């Protein structure tokens, strides 16, 4: 009886609150893979609970397109969007236009998330975004094809990947002229920065700019890494990989036309859906390593942030608190293979059943390599842009890796100017 009363009074209280201040929030969420639908499910659940309304707006697929849009809105101090989904490299770029979440979410709840990401999202002591899902590049492989060509394990090095992809491609081409060995993100955009950082870091070539702000990209190991990847394009990777973003690569993979793919974890759930040609044939492993190096995965992932100019900051923060909470993160992990940012969920039975590789690749997700976003601050975009363009020129064989990295070093120092 007591419980009934309690819940009744709670419902009444909720109703009173919702009547007092039902608001409409605008949410700029996701559009890649199942992103939009999953966002909508979560936001609708919160809206139903609180009596508020959440309006989702369609956003561009590619991360730099989104950033371009949001920078204009925030630069103009627009209140059009209340809640933004922001990339892991954005806090340094747009952080000053976002609300400090510490004022709205108790420290105990914040501390449940991976400390590295919380740290990443903290700019000048302000927690500008709540971790929503983390990401790291992984290697997808076709379990059926590996078996068919006599392999028992996914490749451990880039050399192995090249050999295996070559053999599988040669064999499959006999019946499928569209078949390719390996697809990744080779278009000139932020995605290429992520891929190339993985190659270079896995060869032991560092992270473009080191933590002290020194430009380190022009080194022998980085050049070696780019040489190896340049050799893959046009042989095991289609030449057109230089026009691929995440979704283009996934389309080739999901149509059953590739043996290996580098992508983010979201592609797992998408590939397991009804109607996918690779359903039930997907293996996921850590990316290969270079000679003498360790496998490296670029840290990705998205945060939820509240616009500092929002007219309903309290409700917006409540929505963020709900969406980044344990329950919703678990739902998203199970239904759409989004990596939680809460460590305990990696031991959750339901999560591991839905996405088995979360358990085995836990180290990959927690030790992912960060792009030099924090150290380069508001100039990160220029750095990333110069880097991806240089790598793109290498992939299209317009320049050799050595000279490309030398030119890039000069460019990065020019962007750095008197300091980051």
């Amino acid at each position, binding site marked *: 009886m007591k419980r009934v009363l309690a819940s009744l009074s709670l419902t009444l209280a909720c109703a009173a609150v919702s009547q007092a201040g039902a608001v409409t929030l605008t949410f700029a969420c996701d559009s890649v893979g199942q992103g939009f639908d999953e966002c909508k499910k979560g936001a609708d659940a919160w809206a139903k609970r609180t009596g508020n309304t959440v309006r989702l707006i369609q956003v561009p697929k590619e991360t730099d397109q989104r950033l*371009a849009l949001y920078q204009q809105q925030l*630069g103009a101090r627009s209140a059009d969007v209340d809640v933004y989904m922001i990339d892991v490299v954005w806090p340094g770029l747009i952080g000053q236009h976002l609300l400090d979440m510490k004022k709205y979410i108790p420290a105990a709840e914040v501390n449940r998330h991976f400390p590295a990401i919380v740290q990443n999202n903290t700019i000048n002591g302000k927690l500008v975004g709540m971790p929503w899902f983390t990401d790291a590049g992984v290697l997808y492989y076709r379990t059926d094809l590996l078996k068919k060509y006599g392999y028992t394990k996914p490749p451990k090095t880039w050399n192995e990947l090249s050999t295996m992809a070559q053999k599988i491609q040669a064999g499959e081409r006999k019946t499928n002229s569209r078949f390719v060995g390996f697809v990744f993100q080779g278009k*000139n955009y932020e995605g290429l920065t992520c891929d190339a950082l993985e190659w270079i870091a896995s060869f032991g070539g560092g992270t473009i700019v080191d933590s002290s702000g020194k430009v380190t990209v022009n080194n022998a190991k980085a050049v070696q890494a780019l040489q190896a990847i340049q050799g893959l394009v046009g042989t095991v990777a*289609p030449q*057109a*990989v230089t*026009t691929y973003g995440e979704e283009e690569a996934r389309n080739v993979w999901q149509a059953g036309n590739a043996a290996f793919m580098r992508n983010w974890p979201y592609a797992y759930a998408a590939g397991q859906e009804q109607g996918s040609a690779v359903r039930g044939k997907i293996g996921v492993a850590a990316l290969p390593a270079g000679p003498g190096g360790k496998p490296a995965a670029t840290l990705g992932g998205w945060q939820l942030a509240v616009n500092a100019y929002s007219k309903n900051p309290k409700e917006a923060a409540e929505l963020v608190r709900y969406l980044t909470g344990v329950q919703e993160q678990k739902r998203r992990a199970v239904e759409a293979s989004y990596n939680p940012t809460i460590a305990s969920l990696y031991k959750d039975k339901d999560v591991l059943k839905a996405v088995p590789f979360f358990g085995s690749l836990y180290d990959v997700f927690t030790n992912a390599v960060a792009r030099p976003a924090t150290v380069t601050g508001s100039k990160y975009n220029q750095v990333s842009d110069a880097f991806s363009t240089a790598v793109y020129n290498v992939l299209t064989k317009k320049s050799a890796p050595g000279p490309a990295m030398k030119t890039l070093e000069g460019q990065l120092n020019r962007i750095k100017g008197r300091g980051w």
Partner: protein
Amino acid sequence: MTTPLPSRPTAAPARTGRGLQASRTRVALLLLVPMLLVLAAVAGYPLLRTIYLSFTEYNILTDPAPKWIGLGNYWFTTEDGVGLGVLQIPEWWQSVWNTVKFTVGSVLLETVLGLAFALIINSKIRGRGLLRTAILVPWAIPTVVSAQMWNWMYNDSFGIISDWGQRLGFLQAGQSFLSNPDTALAALIAVDVWKTTPFMALLLLAGLQTIPSDMYEAADVDGANKWTQFWRLTLPLLTPALLVALIFRTLDALRVFDMPYIVKGNAPETITMSIYARQELILNSQFGFGSAISVLIFLIIMVFTAIYVTSLRVKFD
């Protein structure tokens, strides 16, 4: 019939005439003022503001206000000898070069093809009404849509053009005309030609239809063949329309943004001046630097127009 208006008697023709003229001018000015104000607000202010910003350092996200740095965005060398001005940066010159190649290639092809289409439609063939409507289709589709459509047709795994290219042996499996840096710009020119030739054809068709048909009859009587008629009669009389069309297309091509951006993004082998400007202005939030690029684009287009108008003595009236 009643008396026509002009026959109304006027007392002092000279004085009233001048007064009428003056009042007409006054009315005309009055009617023009709102338009001029609107023009000043939507065209003049942004232009002046851009020119002003090009002399400043201004990051829209981090700087509270623009900081005056004079010509620093155009030309500035640090103590270490590093050039920071846009005129010292190879990416800028690459984009200029790409744009020039794109402009020359596309405008040339569009003019030749457009003229051919216009001549065909202008001749008395059956079904020319249908033909005229049909060639307008590419022009009527919004650029965003047609660019994405072509992007898919060029796609290496399911695009029809890549399929043909692969069957005919121009392309290997996994290749497309867009993925090869040597053919990417040509592939973009092809899209532009497909899209804009109808516009050219329509402008030229309008020019053709102003040529009186009795001139051809006279030429026939004089025994000139069709070829001579084209070179001696059609082309000279079409020149004014042709020049106006050329200017339109050239200016459009010089500031092209949408189609190449949708199809190729900011890939270095196809980046145009406008895409480069957008990258610095919007993506990198460098409002001062980006404005300098915009001003340069403005100047280049202005120079082109001036050369066209003066050297070819185009008359707009």
